């Protein structure tokens, strides 16, 4: 089994209204050193080992469904987990 952690964020070129609001809020809490906040989504997938290449599968599902390539980027981490 694989444990896959997927992070989806708005692309750098796309304004993130939530991130902007949180940045302003942190400034008003007296954390002026916070230069920027980008809010995204975190997903954990459990994927069974199969004949298909794990990276190929993850990239396909991210670009087809989990992220919208017009406005979002994604990155992921894969951990192999041992089933007891």
């Amino acid at each position, binding site marked *: 089994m694989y444990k896959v952690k997927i992070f989806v964020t*708005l692309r750098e*070129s*796309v*304004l993130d*209204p*939530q991130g902007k*609001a949180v940045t302003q809020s942190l400034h008003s809490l007296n954390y002026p050193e916070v230069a920027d906040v980008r809010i995204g989504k975190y997903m954990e997938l459990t994927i069974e080992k199969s004949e298909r290449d794990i990276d190929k599968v993850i990239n396909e599902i991210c670009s087809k*469904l*989990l992220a*919208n390539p*017009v*406005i979002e980027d994604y990155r992921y981490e894969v951990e192999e987990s041992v089933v007891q």
Partner: protein
Amino acid sequence: MRFAVIVFPGSNCDVDMYHAIQDELGEEVEYVWHDTDNLDEYDGILLPGGFSYGDYLRTGAIARFSNVMKEVIKAANEGKPVLGVCNGFQILLEAGLLPGAMRRNESLSFICKPVELIVENNKTMFTGEYQQGQSITIPIAHGEGNYYCDEKTLAQLKANNQIVFSYKQNPNGSLEDIAGIINEQGNVLGMMPHPERAVDELLGSADGLKLFQSIVKAWRESHVVNA
């Protein structure tokens, strides 16, 4: 003319759309469930507003994989009029029938109010009954209507007159004040404002009715020529 109102789990403007077509426009209309696999008997396809699949993941992201969407894409490729309003627009974007994507409103609030729109292109099958540059009042009701596309796509939209409606006063941060766009072929329109909620003066405005009348007129003209 026979219309289909596509109903997804979570659609909530389907009844308004049905009412606009049947009672105000006076044409045939049927509700069509999202698992349908044939739309051949319909002349026009309407994707209503709402929160299909709870807006999970992204607005329209799950609905886009519904069984019926294969048929909606087929109908679009056949040149049938396809109108997506609000969540319907978001689904058309996710399905790739229209370019671009929606972001959260700049204010992060859900905005529900009548807005003034400018008819930027009255030479479409959806807007023939309006004057070019006409100002019309149609309500909006959305949390994610902040339209975005890259510069190249925007240049194409402008070059092909694909921006059909714009906001007089931008309510949501939408790029170039865009409220509605059409595909290059001119038969798929997506718009955030709700024309089906503005079909009678009792509702505050009847400005939306002309959009539906335009579709019927264009359809009759093309079908008389073909007959």
